[in-house]
């Protein structure tokens, strides 16, 4: 078993160890925060010249999920590209890889804060938000406006001494980890995330999914003595 199956507002879903979300009934594959073109954007702005392979690495990993699941539709929950320019000027290698992945299936790009005008010139449709049953798909969860499935925050938690990407499953909000290779993380218990998911489950991506409870009281499980795993403090 590499995934973790759970229900969210009438949807039977599977959190994948890759950080993608799978909706088996409709054969939809959802990913958040691919941040394609990130290294180039940093270079363009005079920053460090990072290894320019993260888009390939990200799409390679996405390709493995596509090969394993054969989805009918792929949904990028915003920040698919690191900025609008990265989307417009995407490298031929990225274009080719995207074309291959999208071949024979739908692709839905939601807009994010990094790519507000939605990617143009790539296969698929672009939307601001989209509905999946009773649930809204959007880039960033809005408190009091759930239920929704979103990305944006790149949640992580520290488990057995290692930082792991993590899904957060609350009553109203389901938040995906970032799928992109060069993405940092926000601790799952940061106030911004606590506000959205005060209680529920954290599904951490290791070689398998590790499920951990998120408790309502802020001093919850992480204050108990003698545990080896702790929330990330980054």
């Amino acid at each position, binding site marked *: 078993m590499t995934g973790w199956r759970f229900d969210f507002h009438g949807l039977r879903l599977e959190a994948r160890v890759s950080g993608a979300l799978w909706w088996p009934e409709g054969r939809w594959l959802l990913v958040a925060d691919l941040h394609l073109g990130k290294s180039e954007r940093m270079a363009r702005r005079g920053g460090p010249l990072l290894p320019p392979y993260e888009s390939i690495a990200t799409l390679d990993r996405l390709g493995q999920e596509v090969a394993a699941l054969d989805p009918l539709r792929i949904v990028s929950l915003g920040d698919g590209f690191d900025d609008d320019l990265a989307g417009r000027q995407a490298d031929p290698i990225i274009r080719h890889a995207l074309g291959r992945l999208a071949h024979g299936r739908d692709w839905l790009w939601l807009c994010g804060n990094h790519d507000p005008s939605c990617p143009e010139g790539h296969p698929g449709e672009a939307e601001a938000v989209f509905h999946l049953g009773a649930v809204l798909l959007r880039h960033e969860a809005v408190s009091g406006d759930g239920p929704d499935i979103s990305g944006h925050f790149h949640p992580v938690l520290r488990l057995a001494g290692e930082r792991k990407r993590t899904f957060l499953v609350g009553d109203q909000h389901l938040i995906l980890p970032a799928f992109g290779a*060069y*993405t940092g993380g926000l601790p799952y218990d940061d106030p911004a995330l606590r506000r959205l998911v005060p209680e529920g489950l954290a599904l951490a991506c290791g070689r398998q999914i590790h499920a951990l409870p998120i408790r309502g009281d802020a001093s919850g499980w992480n*204050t108990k003595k003698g545990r080896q795993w702790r929330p990330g403090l980054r």
Partner: protein
Amino acid sequence: MTLPAAFQDWFSRQGWEPHPHQLALLAAEGDRLLIAPTGGGKTLAGFLPSLVELRQATTRGSVHTLYVSPLKALTADIGRNLARPVADLGLSIRIEDRTGDTGQTQRRRQRTDPPEILLTTPESLALMLSYPEAPKIFGGLRRVVLDELHALAESKRGDQLMLCLARLRRLSPGLRVTGLSATVEDPASLARFMAGEAPVEVILADPGPDPDIAMLPTARPAPWAGGGGHYAIPEVLNAVRQARTTIIFINTRAQAELFFQALWAENDENLPIGLHHGSLARESRARVEAAMAAGELRAVVATGSLDLGIDWGAVDLVIQVGAPKNVKRLVQRIGRANHRYNAPSKARIVPANRFEQIECVAALEAVRARDLDGEPRGPGPLDVLCQHILLTACAGPFDADSLYSEFTSAGPYRGLARADFDACLDFAATGGYALRAYDRWQRLMLRDGLWQLRDPRAARLLRMNIGTITEAEMVRVRLRGRGGAPLGEVEEAFAASLSPGDSFLIGGRVVRMDAMREMVIEVSPQPNAQPKIAVYSGVKLAMSTQLAHRVLALIGDPARHASLPVQTRDWLSLQSQISRLPEPGLLLSESFPYAGLWHFALYGFAGRNALQTLGLLLTREMEQEGLGPLGFLSTDYALLIWSMDPLLDPAPLLETARLRAGLGDWLAGNAVMKRTFRNVAIVAGLIQRNMPGLRKSGRQATFSSDILYDTLRKYDPDHLMLRVTAEEAGRGLVDFGRIEEMLARSPRREHLMLERVSPLAAPLLIEVGKVPIRGEGRERLARIEAETLMRAAGLMEIA
């Protein structure tokens, strides 16, 4: 040049006679390296020629003498010390320091109106040279004084300094350079290190009388294992009582904290004893230093943070707690006691456990024989070169050929191949990737035959990344409440293991964690709690090769055991009855059952880093052979592995070729390599170092350098940064060279199957620092933790 009468008079008025080495430096025409013990008037010797020249003519508009020291504190101290002769002699010269603490206004003024004597650090010098005004500031430079060169030469800071020196020699031909160093094993090699085009002559000062050095006799014998040395507290206190001022050196920060606490628990007379280590807040360290200088402290417990620097004339005793690991460092530490020239330094050693007792005896023999150790210096590393190329570009356009010839005039880079230089230049310009992705966004562009920054605004970012010191990320600790006093810092990884309510030890006091905000831990005092011990996982110093050989020779020769304490003698004699003693030329190993598991002990005497690497490699082989290794432990002396099934014949696993193959394909993915990569990537400018205060608390702020490492390994395995990482790891943390050295010097192998624990292995079983085997095991641990938690929360059924 001879000593002018006014200077001669000044010496006489102090009641001093100039030392021969001071006069020798004055008379010297070219570059010199002065090797003198502490207290030999080394610094004055270095400045004397400058003062004499400046008395004759001052150089307005350009620095005359540049002084570089490894410590900021030292520049301030030197400034104060120089002020006196300068005033006495009526010299009208300005002496200023320029360090990370120097304010913006003074920095700006120094650029337009530089002082005659400028005191600085390697990092600040690199920064000054990265400004376009550098040729003006240093164009008239006459002299450079490099203080504590032996310490600088041990790290990349020295390599960077030598590149800066090469630049200074270009800016001001005819410059004279004086290196000042404590006693080192190979003065000629240090002289080559600092030399430019012309060779550097070594001046050896009289080393002074032999030190008064011995073991500190204790009522209780040293314990079998551990590193605390607490058994000797009463004797240490007694020694402190009898001396005027004592420095107690301890090898690690955590041990210093614990020893300090234990010392105070028995300090009934309230002798004023302070604590000094690199993780304490700057304010606390400054307080201790000031109290020390004022003679208010009877003792200070210190780590390597006091290895260098400020002369406290009053120190008359040095106590080394724990094995010194390295004879040269022991000698340099001993020199801290009694800064009166020509008086013997007094030092006492406290071994922390039985193995260390043998090591201390061997080290004392080496000190008496004046047989210093030291690993030969490798060629200058390329990550430093990459940084220097970028900084050169910040100062202005450059020609590649002339920069290459400038670099090869620096000691550490004399053998630099053009191809390596070109690879570094390509890295600095384009990132050096096989996928030429950044042709439009190159950092450096070639215009009219000269390399320059594509975007001059990038200079600001590059200057922020100056320096070669890369420490683990630290989190500051301060007392709770508005304006709570800063206490120091702890490693981020340790901070991550803390939860509100946890107690830990810092600055000699137990505190309780209240909250963590914005990379600051807020704490309240909690004197009576049982504290956690902060982890400072910096590179642990391994026992030097030469000292290891001495230890092995001592153990292997029962005729020499008379020099050991009686309990240690009995211990070794028991070992020779039950098993056998290790000896030079023999690699001894044992297998025995204990507590339901099989244990394999290998007496390699190759230092802890090499034996840790060997542990990682051997457990991997054992995993493949189905022996079920569960963990291992490495010390400077031995490696202990425990497993489900016994290792019957280690010989095939210990073949160099097999180990080397394992190193290549497996260690590359190891955390040690990733840590090495991070350091290399920061120095080379591939990733930006995290500046305190600039760090955002947002998700985009940082992503792990491990991701970059994995990406490069997968998509660009021949990249320069991976090559540099492999070279560096081979020397430092991985230390594979010493595994090969161990195998080469031990042609005989002997493996004994024992029925029970051997005497030599027994202390290893209670030693701390066990390494569990990772990989699948780690994942299993996470699984168990998560399930326990879900069950505790009553949530096991929900999915």
